[in-house]
């Protein structure tokens, strides 16, 4: 029997979050991957793979958060991915949250930039992430995130 291909949404903010996401690509081979981030300018970096932009919400400011959440909701609702992976930040949290509501399996990989405390969006993602990872061994714990390696 031929295994059905999984639809996977790889979603992150720009800058370092996006750089870290691109370093995960070998793990996504075999899935139908949709990449999503906050700026059209990143499209050129992923070749022919499907690419969608969502609104950013870096300031944790109410209106931009709402707009970001809504754009992520539309994306998840339309695409109904089987798996969602995010390297942060706010748009990634929204994707994990809405994805979980629609039955997706979810992965949160907290950014390498959070070396002393997990990010706020990472802490919020805990109840909705099936795989909840930090990239720093000293931040992993029994009730905390797991450490399975980093993007370096």
């Amino acid at each position: 029997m031929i295994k059905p291909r999984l639809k996977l949404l790889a979603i992150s903010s720009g800058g370092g979050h996006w750089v870290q996401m691109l370093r995960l690509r070998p793990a996504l081979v075999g899935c139908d991957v949709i990449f999503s981030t906050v700026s059209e300018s990143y499209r050129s970096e992923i070749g022919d793979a499907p690419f969608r932009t969502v609104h950013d919400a870096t300031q944790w400011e109410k209106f931009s958060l709402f707009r970001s959440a809504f754009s992520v909701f539309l994306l998840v609702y339309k695409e109904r991915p089987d798996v969602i992976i995010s390297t942060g930040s706010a748009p990634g949290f929204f994707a994990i949250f809405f994805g979980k509501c629609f039955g997706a399996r979810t992965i949160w990989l907290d950014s390498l930039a959070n070396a002393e405390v997990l990010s706020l969006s990472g802490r919020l993602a805990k109840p909705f992430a099936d795989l909840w990872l930090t990239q720093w061994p000293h931040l992993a714990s029994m009730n905390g995130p797991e450490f399975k390696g980093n993007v370096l």
Partner: protein
Amino acid sequence: MIFVTVGSDLPFERLLKTVDRWAAETGCKEIFAQIGSSRWTPKHIDCLPFLPPSIFKERFRTADLIVAHAGMGTILSALFYEKPILVMPRRASLGEDRNEHQLATARRMQALGKAHVAFDDAEMLSRLQNLNALVTAPKIGPYAGEDLLNALREFIDCGQQKSAA
């Protein structure tokens, strides 16, 4: 050529002013800065607010030294392109970021030997006076470590088996 970048998200004028002062004092012309959303413009350095990704990459690839905020994306790029990198962390206490995560990043990356760090303006100036001491860290490949990739593969594949069963 020294390539200065402060990320696209928030201004970081303290870093630009320090490098600009150094450029004025030494007369060094071989500097280019992507200044992002900073409102203040350097007087002694060629600069632009944003470069398109392809040009950014080219500037990065051809630079002799990267001077930057302590952003993880910039540090990863420097390691990939085998460039020496000198970072100054943004300080939330000075209104340069929302929290002090860059201070943590800078400390950890310095401890791992991945980046050179100037924790303040004075240290940045003294580090720039001694460019030869800024050695390059070992190159990293284009992708994450195999242990992390395998953990992700395992998690993704287990759903594939479930839906095939």
